[in-house]
């Protein structure tokens, strides 16, 4: 069905179609409407699930962890300070290898209080073993949520869908929503490697020799490496079933013959694409490698950019060094130009990108530049 949905409602719809059985979440702008929608679906009987109105985010992820480890498909959602408040659980669920899905509406961290998007919050998850995806538009957020359950359950790792505050969470766009049967055909029954059930006397997480911890981490490192293929497979088969295929860990946009390549992620990629179109029309050989998954990190994909002029546009900064995308991309292909923009939700539109890319192509950007330069001085 072709319809109009905000990013948050689309995620809720996807969770429903994925037949999540336990939902626990705590309100925080701009994630709240996901949870409200799910509460309503449960209330109306449209979704056969338990809805737990926990008293904090730490408890939200804890409850979802309990539900998932008991063998049920489980979902939560949060943002910014909510993520930071559940941060201990973020690590715990990953180390416990529990498959589940969380929507992360990206939002600035305070102070000052600020509810607009940047990617700093989401990227605090990047070491923890979560699979981290980032949507460009509402449709992609919807698709990633459904794919998330499948991918997560295939590799026993939690999965997060990142979507930008307001620009996706609250923006209503045209979305293709499949019907339940189609989703059921594509998304297998819940699977996971172990469950905690009464009568089965296992203990999860005992202290043990240090080597066991190290081996568990190594197994996890392998699992997330394996997820590269699983993600690609899911993308392909999803494409076959529903007609939308994105390209796996990255999406390539007008990379044919591109000498200049922009690397970035999230909702503003659309604006940047519009800007790229304009510049391409003028003959500038510019394209984009959109990061769809930041973990596993698309290192092979980025390696392909070697020899090109690369601009990494970051919406997150690692204090005392550089942009987070910038840093990681550099670690693969060496020196890149790194623009820090949109921090604290500063709006960056088509014209901004056009100007930025022009400057880039004429080598007028510094290696590390806060955009726009006039503002930061």
């Amino acid at each position: 069905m072709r319809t109009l949905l905000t990013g948050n409602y689309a995620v809720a719809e996807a969770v429903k179609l994925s037949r999540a059985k336990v939902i626990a979440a705590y309100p925080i702008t701009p994630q709240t409407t996901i949870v409200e929608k799910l509460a309503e679906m449960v209330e109306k009987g449209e979704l056969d699930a338990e809805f737990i109105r926990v008293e904090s985010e730490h408890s939200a992820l804890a409850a979802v962890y309990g539900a998932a480890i008991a063998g049920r498909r489980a979902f939560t959602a949060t943002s910014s300070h909510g993520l930071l408040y559940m941060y201990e659980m973020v690590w715990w669920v990953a180390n416990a290898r529990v498959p589940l899905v969380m929507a992360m509406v990206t939002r600035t961290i305070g102070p000052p209080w600020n509810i607009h998007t940047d990617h700093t919050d989401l990227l605090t998850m990047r070491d923890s073993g979560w699979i981290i995806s980032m949507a460009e538009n509402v449709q992609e957020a919807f698709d990633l949520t459904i794919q998330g359950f499948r991918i997560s359950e295939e590799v026993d790792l939690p999965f997060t869908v990142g979507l930008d505050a307001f620009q996706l969470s609250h923006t209503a766009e045209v979305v293709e929503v499949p019907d339940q049967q189609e989703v059921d055909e594509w998304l297998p029954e819940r699977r996971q490697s172990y469950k905690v059930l009464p009568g089965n006397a296992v203990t999860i997480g005992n202290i043990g020799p240090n080597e066991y911890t190290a081996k568990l981490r190594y197994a996890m490192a392998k699992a997330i490496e394996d997820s590269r293929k699983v993600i690609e497979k899911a993308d392909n088969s999803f494409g076959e079933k529903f007609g939308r295929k994105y390209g796996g860990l990255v999406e390539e946009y007008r990379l044919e013959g591109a000498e200049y390549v922009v690397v970035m992620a999230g909702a503003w990629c659309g604006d940047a694409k519009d800007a790229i179109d304009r510049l391409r029309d003028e003959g500038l050989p510019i394209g984009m490698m959109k990061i769809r998954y930041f973990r596993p990190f698309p290192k092979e994909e980025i390696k392909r950019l070697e020899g090109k002029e690369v601009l990494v546009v970051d919406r997150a900064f690692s204090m005392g060094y550089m942009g987070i995308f910038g840093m990681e991309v550099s670690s693969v292909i060496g020196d890149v130009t790194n623009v820090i923009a949109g921090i604290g939700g500063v709006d960056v539109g088509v014209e901004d990108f056009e100007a930025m890319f022009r400057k880039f192509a004429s080598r007028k950007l510094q290696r590390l530049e806060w955009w726009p330069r006039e503002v930061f001085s």
Partner: protein
Amino acid sequence: MLTEVMILSFGGQGGVTAARILALAAVNEGMFAQAIPQFGAERRGSLVRSYLRLSDQPIRRHSSIKKADVLAIFAEKILKIVEVREFLRDGGITVLNAKHGIAEKSYCVDAAGIALSLNLVAAGWPIVNTAMAGAMAKPLEISIESVINAINSTFSGELARINARAAEIAYREVKKCQAGSST
């Protein structure tokens, strides 16, 4: 062709609902559309911006609209606080819940009057969103039928009926108006 619309309203007037209704109407007509609320906390009574994009192509951008092709003003008072030209592209169109136009290409409609006549009131405020949606449909070249369909899938029962009525009347009554000229 991309049309960018901005709605200025007071919190509680339903600016974003109007944007959603028009977006849905456009989608029903096979177009692409995007409805974006003010990015931020809205408090009853404070000034709120909502955005609407319409296009025959998929819409990819997600930034807010700085200057609109069509600017809708949900209350005449708003003209006292904002400088309209700041938000309107050169040659852009305004749609006003007012008696007088303010620019070359203005459309005026007494949305408050229509709402009051249909008893669309909450907390003392006339609820003008559906009337304004009806009025905006005219310059946006969306059919009133699509708008009514969109209203019907947004509200239900009696509420849907009255709101559809408001849109219909506004669609019919909205008029081009000059700065200073009366509707």
